[in-house]
């Protein structure tokens, strides 16, 4: 404990000074004259940069100084790129202060420029569109499940985000703690997600339905369930963000205007296939129709020989699996955290609502709109407000289509 040193405080030992290094690209630039004066203009010192490009002017005390670079002394073909040959800055007690004069090839000298300027607007928009779609697909996976559950049992499930988190955490556990390959862990996590969905309905929601608990009651219960799960994750997993063991920080490959990590492309393909398959199954198959039948009129569905509980359980299973897949992908996209599902839940809800509550394709369309809206809105508004962008889009669209994009109005009378 006594060995804590304030060891190598070299800069402190040097006392107050102004210093810098002049380089052009990686070449040091020597022989450039730099003048230092105090606030009132009184000269303090003048140096010429050395062969290594370095220069340094000691000052007597802390205070504000003016540093000038004599541009006329720059070598042929080298200019000051930021056009700020004169800087005023404060030197603090006991420390050197660094000064930067960025140098570069003069325009028109024929030498190639070291760096191109930033990406074009087109590139940026393409990037945003891609990430918008990517995000939209991840949202869609969660949204489809949420929408299905809402559709069949009328439950606004505020605990759906925790199913998403479950997928991510499950995959993390299998992949990092147990050491299975990521692909295997992902598949297992999705299966487990489905199992959790099934189980949740089997032991909990199904039981509540039989007790004839009201829908509003169940909605509030789902808030409680969300709390339990979320903090259980915190309890078991602690609060920090973690990464899977594989495919972390994968470099992007160049696809024209955008750079995309291959893992993201794979995820997109998987998501699209899964989403289309599930949505088609819902509209085309007998079971899918039964699902919708249960959603409109459970007791009549039972009167048609449909086992309402089995259908709802199936939906929970699918919903749980989809949410887990969404979580696995979100985790693969950027890391795993106990709050990740909760953080994305609002967007998921927005997507479901926008598309039309309870409609499968609506959830898809809504998710893409929300994904794109969050991303593209940053073209005009600060990124910290990107969710505002998406939510405003939601409100505006709902204003004109109160039943959602693909929802249908009820008939009166």
């Amino acid at each position, binding site marked *: 404990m006594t060995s804590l040193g304030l060891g190598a405080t070299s800069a402190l030992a040097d006392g107050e000074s102004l210093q810098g290094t002049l380089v052009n690209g990686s070449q040091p630039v020597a022989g450039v004259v730099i003048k230092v004066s105090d606030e009132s203009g009184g000269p303090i010192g003048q140096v010429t940069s050395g062969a290594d490009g370095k220069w340094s002017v000691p000052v007597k005390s802390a205070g504000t100084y003016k540093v000038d670079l004599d541009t006329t002394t720059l070598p042929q073909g080298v200019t000051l790129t930021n056009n700020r040959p004169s800087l005023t*800055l404060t030197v603090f007690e006991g420390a050197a202060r660094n000064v930067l*004069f960025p140098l570069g090839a003069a325009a028109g000298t024929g030498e190639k420029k070291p760096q191109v300027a930033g990406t074009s607007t087109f590139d940026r928009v393409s990037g945003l569109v891609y990430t918008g779609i990517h995000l939209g697909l991840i949202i869609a996976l969660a949204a489809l499940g949420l929408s299905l559950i809402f559709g069949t049992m009328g439950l606004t499930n505020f605990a759906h985000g925790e199913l998403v988190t479950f997928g991510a955490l499950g995959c993390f556990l299998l992949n990092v703690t147990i050491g299975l390959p990521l692909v295997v862990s992902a598949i297992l996590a999705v299966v487990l997600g489905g199992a959790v969905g099934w189980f949740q309905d089997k032991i909990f929601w199904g039981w509540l339905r039989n007790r004839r608990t009201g829908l509003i009651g169940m909605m509030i219960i789902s808030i409680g369930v969300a709390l339990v799960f979320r903090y259980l994750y*915190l309890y078991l997993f602690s609060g920090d*963000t973690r990464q899977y063991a594989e495919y972390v920080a994968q470099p992007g490959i160049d696809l024209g205007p955008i750079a995309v*990590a291959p893992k993201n492309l794979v995820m997109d393909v998987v998501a699209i296939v899964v989403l289309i398959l599930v949505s088609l199954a819902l509209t085309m198959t007998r079971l899918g129709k039964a699902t919708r039948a249960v959603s409109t009129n459970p007791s009549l569905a039972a009167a048609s020989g449909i086992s309402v509980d089995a259908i709802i359980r199936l939906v929970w299973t699918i919903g749980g699996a989809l949410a887990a897949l969404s979580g696995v992908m979100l985790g693969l996209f950027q890391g795993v955290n106990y709050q990740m599902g909760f953080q994305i839940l609002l967007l998921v809800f927005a997507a479901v609502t926008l598309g039309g509550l309870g409609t499968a394709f609506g959830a898809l369309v809504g998710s893409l709109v929300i994904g794109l809206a969050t991303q593209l809105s940053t073209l005009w508004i600060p990124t910290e407000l990107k969710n505002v962008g998406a939510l405003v889009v939601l409100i505006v669209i709902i204003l004109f289509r109160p039943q959602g994009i693909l929802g249908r109005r009820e008939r009166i009378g």
Partner: protein
Amino acid sequence: ACSNDSDEPATGSSSGAATAAGGDGVLKIGTLLPQTGSLAFLGPPEFAGVKLAVKDINAAGGVLGKDVVESDTDSGDTSTDIASQSVNKLLAEKADVIIGAASSSVSLTVIDKITGAGVVQISPANTSDQFTTYNDKGLYYRTAPPDVLQGRVLGDLVVADGNATVGLLVMQDAYGTGLAKSARAAIESGGGQVVAEEVYDPKAAEFSSEVGKIKAANPQAIVMIGFDETKKIVPKLVEEGLTSKAKKWYFVDGNLSNYGSEFPKGTFQGAKGTLPGAAATDDFKKQLLTVDPALKDYSYSAESYDATVLTALAAVAAKSDAPADFNKQLAAVSKGGEKCKTFKDCKALLDAGKDIDYDGVSGPIEWNDAGDPSEASIGIYQYGADNKYTNLTYQSGKISG
């Protein structure tokens, strides 16, 4: 005080506790640190710091002949109202000092309540410059230096590395924007140019568009000012080709962490960062692990440790556990006197009637009138291929100015 000797500290009768806070002969340390919420990941090292300090203090004989008692509460984050609950509880328990909160925003919600009750508040992690001028009745202290110094050092570092264009990725809260402000000032006055400053919501679902904007501005260096969510941003940077090799990365205390094998080898290679205070030494870390074996990160553990030790020393010096009494000694034990580095040593000096200057694990800690450390050292670190950081150098400086 007025309680009789047979009072057991743990059960303390309510009649005995009738006087204003404290003064019951037992120094009671309350903690208000994050167990839940968005800063939950900062909680464990901070709690461990306090615990270790309490352990060391009690091993050295405690304060006023009694063991120091600790009571832990959750500060949550501002989205829940748990902090004010916790403060209620601590005040009811007659805590003499409250160590916390970690988040500047949370501290701001409870500072009136704590100081209004005449209890001392010491935050190990608040860095917002608001507290310097806040009307805290002289009861608020902190062991973490305000952002100005770190920002200044960070900016200077960025300039010294020759980065003419800089992109800032800033977490949107008091800590992030405050630090960004002073870093930006240092960069720009030093000749660099901030070509993009993206302030993000740390609770955002993802950070693609933020990174996109940085990419569009094409800076030479990327400064990330934030907390845990940095781990979500890094993969995106790599994906977009803004790797630590292509751009220079800079981190700050909130996200300077040993990422180790969590990320592929070399992800962070060459990236630099600043961290106030002397780094927790291996020895200190080892000791922390004895109180919390699950510890992974050590941020603010030293500051928490020092906050606790300083309180104990002030109580020893004041010969009282009443906040009103030891508050007068807090600044005094932190500076001007014979230097000492452990509670045991310092207590021995105090018992010998000497004036002491405690230099803690986190740095020299010389409290000024505002309760801010007037001096601090900032460590500069660099990542190696193993994604772990090592110290390059330290910069010390006075906070003011």
